[in-house]
């Protein structure tokens, strides 16, 4: 197993290699455990390593392969989860110094499902404390310190799913699981040259996940290819009676089907400012899609105060979810004073404003979704810049970053970000593909097709 490329291979290929006997799950697990223990600690992307559990799960996976039993395409593939998901007996700190001793005695539903799919849990990956619910101003707002970007370790890996971003990009896991309330899968995926999917709200059940905002939290895959995102989503999606907010039924990955049709792609208007290089990348990426016979047009979403509603919901939900922490004063243990102040201030969100934010969904949702009568998929730059410096306050570095997460997160729409090149400083940037609720299949098929014709996703740190 001397192949230095092995650790960077997509999960789909690792699964094929395990099934074909070219490598064992145990060999892969040892390789990734070593890498996490060394590079993972240097990047601050590791929250907790779980070697005993990982090696036991890998041994079971290998024994099953030897006996002719394969649970699915990800059988034996090692992975990591954001430290926001409960894991039996392994500390789950939510990135927060105030939860340093927290240990659950059960696995989150997603971890259960990945185990049932034959995957091997390597450990927990770092995150911004409490998923950044109060707002944060420093990349170091985590019990694990600032998570560094493997493409440039003076830069940040993104947040709040920082560890999944860095670890997956650096080849320290086969794939990872992140979560998003407002940007937390897409931002680190874009910063770290990953394919990352924020599924439709309710697609992936949230049993065992830290609650920040009940009507906005989503769980999704962060991977080295769009195909991997589809395979992982297939493993974790579907109703779970322990999460009444989960969508009914399951979900099946069909990589080719819709992309064999001509899709109508609507390009969202973007003020690129001085991000000319990124503008060129978007033009190149959509030209690739056009060359695949998809049609292009200009799309626009109706103007509503999406971001105001998001902010209201997250602050009020966050203050309710963490009221005990706030009331007791434990909130003062958080690293970032902005987190402390923001969470506490959430107690003051007027009920009228909260209702207004909820009501906006009823008004804007049916209106905005009509864009999908004209287009199957929307496209836009995920962000206008690559990773920001890890050591500087975000108030100085985030300006002009752009992004489309406001309406998509408020309305529960799915998005896939895929790599599309680098910014002027050589840092990765992504293309966001957005679909209507339930539209993951077309997004993933388009991502797979794009990655079949381009090599942006194959770049390594």
């Amino acid at each position, binding site marked *: 197993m001397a192949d230095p490329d092995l650790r960077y291979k997509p999960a789909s290929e690792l699964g094929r290699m395990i099934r074909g006997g070219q490598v064992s799950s145990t060999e892969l697990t040892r390789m990734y455990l070593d890498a996490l223990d060394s590079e993972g600690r240097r990047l601050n992307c590791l929250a907790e390593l779980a070697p005993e559990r990982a090696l036991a799960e890998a041994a079971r996976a290998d024994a099953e392969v030897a006996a002719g039993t394969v649970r699915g395409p990800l059988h034996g593939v090692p992975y990591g989860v954001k430290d926001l998901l409960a894991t039996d007996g392994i500390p789950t700190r939510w990135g927060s110094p105030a939860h340093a001793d927290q240990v659950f005695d059960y696995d989150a539903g997603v971890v259960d499902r990945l185990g049932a799919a034959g995957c091997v849990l390597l450990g927990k990956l770092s995150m911004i404390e409490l998923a*950044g619910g109060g*707002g944060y*101003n420093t990349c170091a*707002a985590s019990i694990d310190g600032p998570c560094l970007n493997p493409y440039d370790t003076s830069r940040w890996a993104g947040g709040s799913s920082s560890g999944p971003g860095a670890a997956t990009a650096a080849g320290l896991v086969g794939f990872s699981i992140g979560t998003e*309330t*407002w*940007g937390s899968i897409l931002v680190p995926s874009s910063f770290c040259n990953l394919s990352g999917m924020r599924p*439709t*709200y309710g*697609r992936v059940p949230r049993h065992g996940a830290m609650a920040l905002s009940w*009507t*906005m939290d989503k769980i999704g895959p962060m991977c080295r290819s769009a195909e991997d995102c589809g395979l992982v989503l297939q493993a974790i999606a579907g109703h779970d009676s322990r999460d009444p*907010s989960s*969508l*009914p039924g399951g979900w099946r990955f069909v990589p080719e089907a819709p992309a064999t049709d001509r899709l109508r792609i609507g390009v969202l208007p973007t003020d690129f400012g001085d991000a000319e290089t990124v503008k060129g990348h978007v033009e190149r990426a959509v030209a690739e899609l056009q060359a695949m016979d998809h049609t292009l047009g200009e799309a626009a979403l109706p103007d*509503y*105060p*999406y*971001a*105001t509603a*998001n*902010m*209201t919901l997250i602050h009020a939900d966050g203050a309710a979810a963490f009221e005990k922490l706030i*009331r007791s*004063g434990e909130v*003062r243990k958080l690293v*970032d*004073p*902005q987190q*402390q*102040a923001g969470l*506490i*201030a959430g*107690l*003051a*969100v*007027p009920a009228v*404003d909260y209702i*207004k934010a909820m*009501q906006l*969904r*009823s*008004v804007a*949702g*049916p209106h905005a*979704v009509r864009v999908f009568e004209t287009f199957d998929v929307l496209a836009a730059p995920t*962000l206008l810049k690559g990773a920001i410096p890890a050591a500087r306050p*975000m*108030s*100085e*570095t*985030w300006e002009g970053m752009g*992004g489309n997460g406001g*309406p998509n*997160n*408020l*309305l529960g729409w799915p998005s896939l970000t895929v790599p599309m090149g680098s910014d002027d400083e050589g840092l990765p940037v992504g293309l966001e593909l957005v679909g*209507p*609720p*339930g539209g993951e299949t077309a997004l993933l098929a388009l991502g797979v097709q794009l990655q079949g014709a381009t090599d942006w996703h194959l770049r390594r740190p």
Partner: protein
Amino acid sequence: MPRPKSLSRRDLGKALAGAAAAAALGAPDQTRAQEPEPVEDVPAMSDVEARLDWEPTEELREGIAGNVEYLSRAWADVVPFSEGLEPSFIFTATALDEARRHADG
């Protein structure tokens, strides 16, 4: 969802104008850098403090007040989106309702 921290409430206003509730992607343009009011004059601040079993430091109080001010004004400049709705308009509350409606076709 990073957001500039409110070391001073004047800076918070400025930062929000530019970094735009920062990684709060697509956040609104909050062009309201202005002199902060005394903490005591921030509506709802006393309600917040009444809910705490502890006393914040002066610096944290400033930060809380900045955020409270910001949140309380968040909808002030928003063009009413519900004008024209029937008084009996019934709203469904969550993104789940929307997702479910579409998932069900």
